[in-house]
């Protein structure tokens, strides 16, 4: 937090080197967050730029109630969701069962190896509604706490837990379905 304060203070005083450092420290998180939801590479880079421009504009309003990276991630999340809404690319319904006919055909012919299972799970995670996928990945891949995910998404903690639980369970069911109990023992 102290480092955040010094960095923010320098950026607000017009130190461009400090702003460059702020971007470098957070660009990976922002790119991962946006890249998970938006699949067009050019759009991802453009949105990442928009995020940091917004950070630059609004940095004076940052209230230190969370870490700077969490605040920046919340901006990235909001911009991604707005982008998906504008493009009407947002799935809102949680799939009770994801269609996997192609994979089923593949599996019918031979046993799936680890790499194929990884691809299957990642492919299916892309079909989750963005709120579910974001919560799942922030928790399991980025190692964020529930409270940090609450700050980023603006959703209540119970909702975040429910998103993670349901998304994880769905993926587990798919793995069970396509690998079979015997193969997992």
């Amino acid at each position, binding site marked *: 937090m102290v480092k955040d304060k010094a960095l923010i203070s320098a950026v607000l005083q017009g130190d461009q080197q400090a*702003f460059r450092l702020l971007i470098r420290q957070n660009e990976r998180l922002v790119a991962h967050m946006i890249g998970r939801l938006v699949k067009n590479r050019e759009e991802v880079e453009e949105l990442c730029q928009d995020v940091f421009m917004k950070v630059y504009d609004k940095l004076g309003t940052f209230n230190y109630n969370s870490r700077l990276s969490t605040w920046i991630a919340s901006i990235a999340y909001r911009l991604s969701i707005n982008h998906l809404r504008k493009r009407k690319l947002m799935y809102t319904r949680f799939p009770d069962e994801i269609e996997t006919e192609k994979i089923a055909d593949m599996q019918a012919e031979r046993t799936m190896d680890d790499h194929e299972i990884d691809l299957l799970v990642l492919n299916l995670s892309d079909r989750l509604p963005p709120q579910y996928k974001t919560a799942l990945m922030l928790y399991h*891949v980025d190692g964020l706490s529930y409270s940090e995910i609450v700050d980023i998404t603006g959703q209540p903690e119970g909702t975040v837990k429910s998103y993670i*639980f349901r998304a994880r369970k769905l993926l587990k069911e798919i*793995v*069970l379905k396509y690998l079979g109990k015997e193969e997992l023992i």
Partner: protein
Amino acid sequence: MKTPDEEIRKMIDREELARDAEVHEVKAYQHVFRALSTEQGFELPEDFADKVVNKARAREKSQAFPEIALMLIGQVGITFILIVAIIMAGLIFDSGMIRAFMNHIEIIVGGAVIFILVNFLERKFIRFLY
């Protein structure tokens, strides 16, 4: 990244997995966690930070020009009005005029208070609006 075993343990703690969960359930979760950890994150170009800094600088410059132009127009306008007012009123500056002002110190104090108040309000409430 939390390890899969740590995750499974946490899930059992939270009773998301029944205590008598079968081995295949746990293994399936481990497959899911391992798969998620192999996610290929989106990589931004090396010069991304420079691009954003340059974009911010360019925008500031383009925003600064109209502001400076407006300020100059305002200053020229005020000076012009002041000159016209002086000519029309036939006002002549001398020490007597300053002494007359000093006799009405409340006007000077009132002006200073208004100036400070306007600055305070602008910093506290208005600056965040744009």
